[in-house]
C-alpha cells in the first residue's frame, strides 16, 4: 500500500518536473530563437534568404557572407578599436569607481551623504540633458574625433558601478578595517590590501558590465568619432547598412562576428556577472 502511494507521488513529481523543464525550455527558446535565425541566415545562400514563407535551415551552408562582411568593412580594425576603448573604459572603472565607493561606504566624512545622493541622482539623469554641453566641451578642447570622450568618463567614476561596489563594501565588517588601523596601517594600504581583494566579485561584475556597455554603445561613438579609421564596431556596422543597401546575409554575418566577442566575455565572467546583477538589486 505504502509503496503504491510512493510510486504515484513519484510519477506526479516526475510529471511536474517535466513540465518545469518544458517551461524553462520554452522561456529560453523565446530568447535564443532570434540568435538562431541570425546564425542560420548568415550561413544561408542568397537565393534562400528571401523566401516566403521563411525557411529556417539552409539547404547548402555557405561562408560567402562572412567573406563579404570581412571584405567590405574593416572588421579587424574596428575590432581592435572597440577592444581598445572597452579595455581602457574597464581600466578606468576599476581605478576610479572602487575608490569612490570605498569613500562612501567606509570613510566617515562630512558631505559623504551629499555625494552619495549625487551618485543616485546622476543615475537617474537622462543623458540627453548633458549630451550637448559635454559635446561642446570636448569640441572646445579639440578632443572630438579622438577616443578621449569615450574613455575619460570611466576614469571619473561611473555612478552605477560606484553604487554597486558601495553596496558590496557595506557588507565588510568595520572591525576588519578598525583592526588594521590599530596595527598602524594607512588608509591606502587598507584599501589596497584588504578592501580591494574582498571586493573582487563586485569589481569583476563592474568590469564585465563596463565592457559590455562600451562594446555595445552606439550613441557616443556616433557623435564623437568622425574618421572611419577610428570607428567602433557599432558604428562600422551601422555604416555598413548605409553603404551597401541591405545584403541581409552579409549583415547577419557581420552581426554574428560583432556579437561573438561579447558572448565570449560574458561566458568568461558569467559567475561574477550574475553576482553583480544580484548585487545591483537594491539591498
Amino acid at each position, binding site marked *: 500500500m505504502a509503496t503504491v502511494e510512493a510510486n504515484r507521488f513519484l510519477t506526479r513529481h516526475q510529471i511536474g518536473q517535466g513540465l518545469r523543464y518544458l517551461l524553462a525550455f520554452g522561456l529560453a527558446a523565446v530568447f535564443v530563437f532570434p540568435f538562431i535565425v541570425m546564425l542560420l541566415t548568415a550561413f544561408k545562400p*542568397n537565393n534562400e534568404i*528571401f523566401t*516566403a514563407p521563411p525557411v529556417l535551415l539552409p539547404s547548402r551552408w555557405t561562408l560567402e557572407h562572412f567573406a563579404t562582411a570581412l571584405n*567590405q568593412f574593416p572588421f579587424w580594425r574596428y575590432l581592435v578599436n572597440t577592444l581598445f576603448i572597452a579595455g581602457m573604459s574597464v581600466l578606468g572603472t576599476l581605478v576610479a569607481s572602487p575608490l569612490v565607493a570605498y569613500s562612501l561606504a567606509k570613510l566617515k566624512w562630512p558631505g559623504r551623504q551629499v555625494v552619495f545622493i549625487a551618485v543616485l541622482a546622476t543615475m537617474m539623469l537622462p543623458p540627453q540633458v548633458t549630451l550637448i554641453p559635454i559635446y561642446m566641451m570636448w*569640441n572646445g578642447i*579639440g578632443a*572630438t*574625433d579622438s577616443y578621449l570622450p569615450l574613455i575619460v568618463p570611466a576614469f571619473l567614476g561611473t555612478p552605477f558601478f560606484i553604487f554597486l561596489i558601495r553596496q558590496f563594501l557595506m557588507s565588510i565588517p568595520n572591525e576588519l578595517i578598525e583592526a588594521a588601523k590599530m596595527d598602524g596601517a594607512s588608509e591606502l594600504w587598507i584599501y589596497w590590501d584588504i578592501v580591494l581583494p574582498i571586493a573582487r566579485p563586485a569589481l569583476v561584475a563592474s568590469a564585465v558590465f563596463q565592457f559590455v556597455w562600451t562594446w555595445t554603445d552606439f550613441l557616443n561613438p*556616433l*557623435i*564623437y*568619432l*568622425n*574618421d*572611419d*579609421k577610428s570607428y567602433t564596431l557599432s*558604428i562600422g556596422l*551601422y*555604416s555598413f547598412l*548605409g*553603404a*551597401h*543597401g*541591405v*545584403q*541581409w546575409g552579409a549583415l547577419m554575418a557581420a552581426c554574428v562576428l560583432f556579437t561573438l566577442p561579447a558572448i565570449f566575455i560574458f561566458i568568461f565572467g558569467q559567475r561574477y556577472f550574475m553576482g553583480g546583477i544580484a548585487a545591483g538589486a537594491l539591498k
Partner: protein
Amino acid sequence: MQPFVYGALRGGVIGMAAAMAIGLAAVPAQAQTKVTFSYLWGGAEGQALEQIISDFNASQSDIVLEGVSSPDMTKQLASMSSARGAFDISDNFAGNVAAWADQGILLPLNDYDIDLSDFPDSVMNQLTVDGQVYSMPIATHTYQLIYNKKLLDEAGVAPPTTMDELADAIKKLTKVDADGNVTQIGLGSPSLDNSIKTLGYAFGGDWNRDGKPTPTDPGAVEAVQFFYDNVIAPIGPEAYNRFVAGFGPYMSDQDPFVRGKYAMAIDGEWRAKFNQEAGMDWGVVPVPGKTADLNGATGVDASTLFIPTNAPNKEAAVVVLKYLTSPPVMEKFSHVLGNLPARKSLAESTAYNDLPHFDVWLSALTNPNTHGLPAVLYMAEYNTDLVSAFDAVAQGIQTPEAALQSVADRTASYMQ
C-alpha cells in the same frame, strides 16, 4: 677587436650616408599635400570613385588624394564642427547647401576662379546663396516614369502620356487575388518623397515659391490627392502597406521593380544602368503632366562636392574639386554610376549611349519645367516634415489636405 670596431664604424658611416640619401630622395614626397576626400558613396559607387582618385594621383605629383567612405551624414556634419577638420572635400546634396552655408561651414568658392558657364542654372541656383557659390555639382538626377514592358503588354496597357491614362494604367495594373491579397500594384514608390514631389511638379505645382515653403500649393495638394485616390485608396492603406512590406531591398537582386511587384514607378536615371544589368524588359516615358505642356515636368537634384571651412588643405582641395568636375572626369564618373552629368556640354555626349533610354532623363536637364528646390535654410526640416506628411497619407492616417496643412502649420516655426 680592432677590425670589429672598424667594421662597425664603417657600417655606421655607410648607414648614415644611405639614410641621408633616402632622406634627400624623400624630400619631394614630403612636399606633397595630402587631401582627404570623405564621401557618402559606398559599394560599387565607392569603388568607381576610388578608381577616379587613383587616376588623379597618377595625373600629377603635388597632391596625394586619399578617399574615405563614410556614409553617415550626421557624422559628416559633426566632424565639420571641430576646429581642424577630418577631411578636405566631401559630397552631399543640394538640399543642405543653404543651411550649411548659413552656419559658415562651407567654403565660399567665388574667389577660386571656377568657370560656371557650363553648369545648368536650375542646378547652380540650388548651390548659390546671395550670389556666393558654396558647392559644385558632380552629378545630377531627374525623375521620370519607368515601366515594366512585360507587365504592361500583358495587361494591354500603353505607356501613359496623360494623367488620366496614368490613373487608368495604375488601375489596370493593380492586381488582387481571390483571397483579397494584393499581388501587384500599378505605381510603386521606391521613394515616396521623390514620387510625390515629382507628381507635384507634373500637376503644375511647386513645393517652394518665392523663398517660402508651399506645401499647400494647389498642384501639390492635387498631386498628393492623386496619389492617394489612385494608389492607396483602391486597395486600402492596410493592404497597400502589407504588400510593400514584402518588397526586397531596393536595387538588389530582390529589387521589387525587377521582380514585378509594381508595374510602374517614378524613379531616377540610375535605374537605366541597373535595369539593364538586371536584364529586364523595361521602358521609360516622361512623367505625364496635368496638361500637355507639363509633360515631363520633374525635379532636379544634384550630388554636390564641397570644401568645409575647417579643411586642413583648402587650396589643394580646390584643385581636386576642379579636377573632379572637369568634363572628362565628370563624364567618366557619372557614366560609371549611371548618373546624369552636371554640365550642359555633356548632355550631348555619346558616352551615355550604351545606357538604354537615358535620354529621357537627360532631356529633363534642359526642360523649362524642371524644378530645383532652392538653397534655403529650412530645407532639411521642411523635407523631413513633407516625408512625414506623405507617409501619413500613405498610411491612411491623414487626408492629403490635412497632412499638407499640418506641414504648412509647422513652416511658421522654421524661420526662428
